[in-house]
């Protein structure tokens, strides 16, 4: 019974935490630029407005179905992420499953944007998939390192092992190289600057979102909020020892997200080829060094 309740409530919890992080990100940027900035629940206002638009433009069936793929893929990924109090699905699917289905939302978005036939959208989505090839390699490598180190691919067991001996058994202490590589990959994963090339409002008019208005953009906002939660939780579980209660989880996510935002706020934007080159030049060797440390 409690599992069913969790399955229903979990997306909402993830959504509201994600919303908090989205609002925090805008507030953080504003404060660094010496502005007052919007209230912290500004993303809620935005989503409410987008969802209550009176007219909507649809470019065809694929455009509509892609939105379902986007949100559905994200919710499916979310179910496999173990959090304090809920790890029912994570015993059936380990990190490999997560890394597999986490690719469904970008592919869904690619299909939908393809239907809208907007050149800016196509450029944006090709950049997104190109960048994916950049950050996925170091992230997968650092996950492989953690899996070899702890002899498991299950995210839940990884958390248990790291929690067994306090801070000394956290991934970030036992192998800082892998953690550094994953942190840089996380920057690309969350498409924050300097890897913001997929959105790039000043060159390609927000890329994949160009043709999305009203409810479509609202769904993308909701997906983005849940996605922030997923990415931060994966990083926390792999390297920061997961969490035993929700407060601990949110504090750890908050710290990781603040690091990501601090990098975001001072950097410009890499070109997509430079971004991929950077990803393969710095984090990949770091991750390989980490794996060598694990093996020998």
């Amino acid at each position, binding site marked *: 019974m409690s599992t069913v309740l969790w399955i229903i409530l979990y997306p909402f919890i993830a959504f509201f935490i994600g919303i908090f992080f989205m609002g925090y990100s*805008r507030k953080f940027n*504003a404060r660094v*630029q*010496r*502005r*007052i*900035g*919007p*209230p912290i629940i*500004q993303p*809620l*206002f*935005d989503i*409410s*407005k987008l969802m*209550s*638009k*009176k*007219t*909507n*433009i649809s470019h065809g069936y694929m455009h509509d179905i892609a939105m379902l793929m986007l949100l559905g893929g994200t919710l499916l990924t979310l179910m496999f992420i173990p959090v304090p109090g809920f790890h029912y699905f994570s015993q059936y699917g380990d990190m490999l499953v997560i890394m597999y289905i986490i690719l469904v939302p970008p592919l869904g978005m690619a299909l939908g944007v393809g239907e809208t036939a907007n050149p800016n959208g196509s450029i944006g989505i090709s950049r997104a998939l190109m960048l994916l090839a950049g950050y996925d390699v170091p992230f997968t490598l650092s996950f492989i390192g953690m899996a070899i180190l702890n002899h498991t691919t299950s995210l839940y067991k990884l958390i248990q092992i790291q929690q067994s001996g306090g801070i000394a058994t956290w991934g970030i202490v036992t192998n800082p190289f892998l953690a550094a590589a994953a942190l840089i990959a996380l920057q690309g994963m969350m498409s924050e600057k300097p890897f913001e090339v997929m959105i790039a*409002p*000043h060159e390609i*008019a*927000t890329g994949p*979102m*160009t*043709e*999305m*208005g*009203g409810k479509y*953009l609202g769904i993308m906002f909701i997906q983005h909020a849940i996605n922030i939660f997923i990415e931060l939780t994966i990083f926390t579980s792999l390297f920061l020892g997961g969490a035993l209660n929700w407060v601990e989880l949110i504090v750890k996510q908050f710290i990781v997200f603040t690091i990501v935002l601090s990098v975001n706020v001072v950097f410009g934007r890499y070109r997509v080829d430079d971004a991929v080159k950077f990803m393969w030049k710095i984090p990949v060797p770091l991750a390989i060094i980490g794996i060598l440390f694990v093996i020998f």
Partner: protein
Amino acid sequence: MEKQVTARNVWERIFTKLNKRSLWMLHYCTGCGAIELPPTMTARFDMERFGIMPMVTPRQADILLITGYLSLKTLKRVILTYEQMQAPKWVVGFGSCTINGGMYWNSYITIKSLDQYLPVDLYIAGCMPRPEAIIEAFNTLIKRIDEGKADAWKDYYRNYDFYKENQRKVLGEFETYVDIKADAKRFGIV
């Protein structure tokens, strides 16, 4: 002229209260007025306090801010842009050029009054209006949205023939990509 406010139910009022805090603005900068917008967005005046943000595509925008004069060529683009925006949407005319032609009043190629061609919710007078005036205007717009008075976008659906006729007079025969009358019927706006 005092506008007739249509009756709204509780849900619509709640959503209006939420939605007025999030207005995304597409600024169509043809003339000199655009120079007043960067200070409005950045640290000194910071309009993001009110949830107003610049957006780059018409699909995502709620406010169409038209700064400066409109020549016949740019008017055509403005109309195409306006029709791509999703309702509810608001047009704000910025500077005297949009009100009566301003210093271009006897030019052969600019239009005099914007509200003949698009339904304008609010004008900001001045040549050019300072950032304080822009903030004041946006606050007025937010207030009018809250009261339910800012519904000029419905006029475009209801009196499309009037606007289309005026557009035709200056631009000649031209077709936009949006079928306004079919849309009005489909989304139940009329």
